[in-house]
């Protein structure tokens, strides 16, 4: 009993500590959002947001990331109910969807670059690439994390630590989707309208 209580305590502490890190991460993005909103008019003769962004492309990215957030949540839930194979499928699917999202983002960045819309071009593009790129960097780190977690789950699916490790990654991944909701709205949708 004592052992179980201790494990539960460790789990709660890790959750709270990681949650506080995520709050500071949100503050980082708040700064980047504020910068983007202030600078987005500064195109210095280059194309504006409405000329550059395709809302349907952004919609595809949003749906892919939302689905990955869902599969990730299901994986964590399955692990809590000791359904190891469902957890593995859920996490595997999360990695695949995350890779698809990252590939879409890379494709968009590459297109902008090949047309000469680099992040050195003007203030609008600098702030755009910094904001969306920082999110993409978080996604990349999340994918490395998820892959190592997947390896851990395959090797020791019944270990006590599995649930704790999984729940921390799930928090991270859900927050990346929450940040993307605002990127989708403020950068892409409002960009198309302005």
């Amino acid at each position, binding site marked *: 009993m004592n052992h179980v209580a201790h494990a539960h305590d460790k789990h709660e502490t890790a*959750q*709270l500590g990681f*949650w*506080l890190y995520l*709050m500071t991460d*949100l*503050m980082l993005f*708040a*700064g980047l*959002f*504020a*910068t983007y*909103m*202030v600078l987005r008019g500064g195109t210095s003769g280059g194309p504006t947001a409405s000329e550059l962004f395709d*809302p*349907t492309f952004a*919609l595809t990215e*949003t*749906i892919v990331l*939302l*689905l990955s*957030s*869902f599969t990730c*949540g*299901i994986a964590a*839930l399955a692990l809590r*109910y000791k*359904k190891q194979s469902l957890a593995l499928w859920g996490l595997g699917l999360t990695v695949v969807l995350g890779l698809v999202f990252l590939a879409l983002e890379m494709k968009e960045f590459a297109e902008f670059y090949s047309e000469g819309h680099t992040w050195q071009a003007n203030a609008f593009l600098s702030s755009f690439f910094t904001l969306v790129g920082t999110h993409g960097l978080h996604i990349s780190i999340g994918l490395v994390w998820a892959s190592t977690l997947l390896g851990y789950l395959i090797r020791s699916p019944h270990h006590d630590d599995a649930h704790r490790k999984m729940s921390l990654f799930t*928090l991270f991944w*859900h927050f990346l*989707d*929450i940040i993307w*909701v*605002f990127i*989708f*709205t*403020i950068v892409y*949708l*409002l960009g*198309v*309208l*302005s």
Partner: protein
Amino acid sequence: MKQNHFKKEVATYVWGLVAGLVLTLLAYGVTVAHLDAPLTLIAAVLLGLATLQVITQVLFFLHLDSETKPHWKSQAFIFTVLMIIVVVVGSLWIMTNLDYRMGMSGHAMEEYMLRQNKKGF
């Protein structure tokens, strides 16, 4: 019994996903529909939809509503949201104001300053 609990919890995730999809498609629809409405109104609707989606995700995916006392996570989250509003709205306020004043001619600036002085600080 345990199987029932599992199904119930899966259902909250499914509802979260459905709500997310509906809100995302609604926001997309509002954007591409070429509505005959002022831009500020459409922007307010879009930001409202985004906020709704965040609330549904916080409830259905992060389960912040079922947190036990002393609610540290919720407190930290609400405080962070407040700070974000201060940073973002504050930055926009200051920079728009600065932009407005820097765009004036010398004469208009002088009159503006005199008007502000009369109001008192």
